């Protein structure tokens, strides 16, 4: 899994000298940025039902979530915007999360798309039927 973890200065304060340490508070929330790339594996692609599942999972997290294909970047918490991606089977999407729970959000979304493929059939599974 390609997950990059970037720490910005606020987060980095946790490992800086004690004198500079910033106490976590409402103004100094840890800013974590995580990114991953996922492949759409269910045959019907990201139609409305999977898009809703994605948005439901995304909304469980505090962090901002952006999803991009080659052309557009959209809000991963908006069903209308997610429907604009028209992500067909095999499409690669980049999921970027920014906020304290970014890592958990990216992990959960990657699992939903790639491991569970939205509980929908993949092309291979359909051929078996």
């Amino acid at each position, binding site marked *: 899994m390609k997950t990059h973890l970037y720490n910005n200065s606020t987060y980095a304060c946790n490992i800086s000298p004690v004198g500079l340490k910033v106490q976590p508070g409402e103004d100094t929330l840890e800013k974590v940025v995580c990114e991953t790339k996922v492949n759409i594996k269910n045959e019907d692609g990201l139609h*409305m039902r999977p898009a809703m599942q994605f948005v439901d999972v995304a909304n469980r997290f505090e962090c901002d979530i952006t999803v991009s294909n080659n052309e557009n970047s959209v809000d991963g918490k908006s069903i209308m915007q997610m429907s*604009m991606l028209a992500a067909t089977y095999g499409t690669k999407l980049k999921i970027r999360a920014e906020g304290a729970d970014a890592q958990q959000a990216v992990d959960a979304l990657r699992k939903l798309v790639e491991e569970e493929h939205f509980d929908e059939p993949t092309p291979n599974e359909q051929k078996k039927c």
Partner: protein
Amino acid sequence: MKFADFVCFEATIPKLKASNRNSAIAELTSALNKAGRLGKGICEEITKAVIKREKEASTGMGKGVAVPHVKHEAVKDVVAAVGQSSAGIDFSSLDKKPVYSVILLISPADNPDRHLQAMESIFKHLQRDRFRKFLRQSQTAKEIKDLLREADENPSL
């Protein structure tokens, strides 16, 4: 994909008579049927299929719009009909608010990519405040057709 590629303008209903979700869907499918876009004798079956899909999860996306849809082998390519209700219709929308603009979409059973492209085109415009406002203000089928054609030409509308 452009609106003009899949919206059946002859099936536009600028003033839906329906006051509830199921009859709004029935009105739009029968408009598509009258326009000759559905297979013979299949209209009722498609209406039922759309309603069944709607019961599984509402396509009322909030902001006064709903996009009821279904895949059906009766159509060879995606086809849509646009309906407007000034009174508003309860679609059990995500935001619990009434729906004023309904875009019914029927997609072929064997071409998921085409369905996604039509959805992309619909939501690209529906998510824009100005487009939704203009759609709601449209009074006639011609105004709706002009608006959709203008949106095709100028996606930033």
